[in-house]
């Protein structure tokens, strides 16, 4: 325990010393953007040119032998050694020049031994460490994990009490578990039909049909204007009538009377009532409705 703390502290001392001696920053390379379907942040930070594959292979081997145990196979920290990817020292390093003194001298007081390696070897190790992506959002690390932890039997009960007044697994939801095979997509779609992707995760297909929101406007004359809601704010409501004509109507406080018919309102009303267990149970149940 104290070994771990000491080692971390040592790494930090080195980092702050090195930070006084900044290396020239690398211009942001024009890397191809992530596919637009994935809502990740622009890669606007220093990216490193791909390393020589031979150097990378040498570096990987050396890292595996000497560094892996303490700093982890992915350089995000291991038995006692800190995460190297977010280390201020490593982020400021170009090709081993700031890493070398630490490797060659070690931090004996902090438990890090010295490694009698050449600058060329350390440069190879640096190339390997720098080959990891450095960032928060990292789709490649998102392992598909099973979200199925619920109890299908309880889920059937929950379905009857929360969903049964509008939906039926032998009617509109017949075969829903076969139609939507990804459990997470299924879960999102029973909570709020039509939702697509995640923020920080992959976009998922929209697999449920949601009827449009409609609106009824009662004019002072008593005439009712109805149609599909286009847009509404406090001043104008716009709708498309069944004859295809779009109408835009001025609003002034409560005049004219505007009633919005949101097909998703029952789903919105349910949100404050769910426990997470009910959601997980419902999911476990609905995947069985093949």
């Amino acid at each position, binding site marked *: 325990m104290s070994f771990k703390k000491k080692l971390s502290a040592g790494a930090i001392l080195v980092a702050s010393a090195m930070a006084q001696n900044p290396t020239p*920053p690398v211009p942001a390379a024009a890397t191809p953007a992530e596919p637009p379907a994935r809502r990740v942040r622009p890669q606007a930070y220093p990216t490193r040119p791909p390393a020589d594959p031979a150097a990378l292979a040498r570096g990987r081997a050396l890292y595996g032998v000497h560094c892996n145990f303490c700093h982890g196979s992915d350089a995000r920290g291991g038995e006692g050694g800190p995460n190297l990817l977010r280390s201020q020292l490593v*982020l400021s390093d170009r090709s081993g020049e700031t890493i070398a003194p630490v490797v060659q001298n070690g931090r004996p007081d902090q438990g890090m031994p010295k490694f009698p390696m050449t600058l060329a070897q350390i440069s190879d190790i640096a190339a390997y460490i720098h080959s990891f992506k450095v960032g*928060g959002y990292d789709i490649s*690390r998102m392992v598909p994990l099973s*979200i199925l932890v619920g109890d299908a039997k309880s889920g059937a009960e929950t379905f009857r009490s929360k969903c049964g007044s509008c939906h039926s697994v032998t009617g509109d939801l017949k075969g829903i578990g076969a139609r939507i095979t990804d459990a997470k997509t299924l879960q999102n779609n029973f909570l709020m039909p039509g939702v697509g992707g995640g*923020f920080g995760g992959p976009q998922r297909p929209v697999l449920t049909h949601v009827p449009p*929101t409609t609106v009824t406007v009662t004019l002072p004359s008593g005439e009712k204007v109805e149609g599909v809601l286009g847009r509404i704010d406090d001043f104008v409501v716009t709708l498309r009538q069944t004859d295809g004509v779009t109408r835009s109507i001025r609003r002034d406080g409560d005049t004219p009377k505007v009633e919005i018919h949101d097909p998703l309102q029952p789903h919105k009303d349910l*949100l404050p009532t769910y426990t997470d267990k009910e959601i*997980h149970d419902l999911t476990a149940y609905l995947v069985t409705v093949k």
Partner: protein
Amino acid sequence: MRTLKHFLAAGAFCLLPAMAPGQALDPALLTKPLGDAWPTYSGDYSGKRYSSLQQINAGNVKTMTLAWMSKFTAGPGTDSGARRGRFSPAPLIVGGEGTAEAGAGTFSGGTNIRASILQVNGILYLSTPDNAWAADARDGHELWHYFWKTKGGTHIGNRGLGMWGNWLYMETPDDFLVCLDAATGKERWHKQIADFNLQYFSTMAPIVIGNHILIGTGNDLDEPGYVQSRDPETGEVQWTWYSVPTKKGDLGLETWGSLDGARHGAGNVWIPGSYDPETHLYIFGTGNPSPAYTNPPSRAGDNLYTCSIVAVNVDTGKMAWYYQFNPHDTHDWDSTETPILVDGNFNGKPRKMVVHADRNGYFYTLDRLTGEHLVTNKFSIAANWAKGLNDKGQPVRDPAKDSTVPGSLVSPNNGGAANWPPPAYSPDTGLFYVPAAETYAMYYLTETDPRGAMGLGGKDEVGLASSGYVTAIDYKTGKVAWRHRYPGTAGGLGNGMLTTAGKLLFTGDAGGNLVAYNAANGNIVWHSHIGQVSNAPETYMLDGHQYILVAAGDSLFAFTLY
């Protein structure tokens, strides 16, 4: 001690550079009630965004009309509307250490003015990431345009410029503080304020107090947040206050699992705070801890001073008090929203307070001399992530509402119940106004590695429902006095607030309207559809006319009475 402080502050105001007459900012303006000018981020130091102007008021606002609109084009191009036509073009000054021209569209989808705009001596100073402009406050025409060639960085927004005498200060996404001559737009110097290699990015509006330029930065990796004071003449560092412990013996280290965890614990300060001239305390909010959504042993504990309000002596950089709004945050709910200084009655006695509506859905009132907790109340009806309040008035996080593998239904979503769009407070109504949202999202944990993710990683969030409100809160109880929902089936936060002695509240709604509300009851009294409002409205007085100024994307709109 006290006398020495006062002496220092008085001295600071004498150190101003030689000023071009009529152009320079008189620092005395900064401590006066907000009126004719708008010399700093919130108008004045209190953060209230309450103007004493009342030429435009609840009785006559119905006749308020457009005075001018003016379009600005970010980037190095020369197609700005103001540069076309028969008048001589406004000068373009280019600076920067990078090679990229992150103009309109490159990072952020076009010119989008989210900044607070300064109005000093009839000139407006505005900014977007990498760009600063001066424009005539009488008709909006461009006087000069400064463009910074960037090295990169997150170009999410620029919150505005700071002004000291004749000099302007701007932060850039690639972490420089740039000092410009307000008269010409020419660069005086630029200084690195954070390490771009560590993935810092800088958006904050510099705040000028005496001879201190206060700055902050952002970071979405795991690097420590800080507030720094710089010398206005040289740009050199005067002091640095870190949001997290950075070495053994630092206060708050016991609230982290390890020093390495604390050193990589974030708490970035990316929105300006407020300043109390009587106590010399700069009072600001700090950002979320990092990694944001995962709970590695290295960040076990409350994670001081993330998600906190902190009072730092502006002369020394030493912390006087703090209060943590959100111990051990797990949803990236920054507490950087501008705190507002309120002088008023509390339990029947006059009290100096500071109030804050947090991204986490709770409203807080504190004593600003001591940090003593007075009020916590949930202003978001839907917020469901806490089990209740502890004896310090802090919400107690329910770990079951962290991101989980099978999914947690949480309110609010990551965007929060409130966010950076500035709130306002009116001493006339005693109400605090904040753009608010009621939201639900599923938070899925995608990183089960016990070491946690880095930065904002490890979470997949699916938004389920959202609605936006103008919310008015009584600071004495934290209770919602009234709220106005933006109509429709969806919608999120509107933009920032302005309130005036004319008994009005101005803000941009979710439908692209600038709207004036009766500040007492939320009734709508005026509106104009100008496109999606992108900053908080402001007001100023010039040539005997009061103007209401607001940005919508790439354009400024000014309204007045004739």
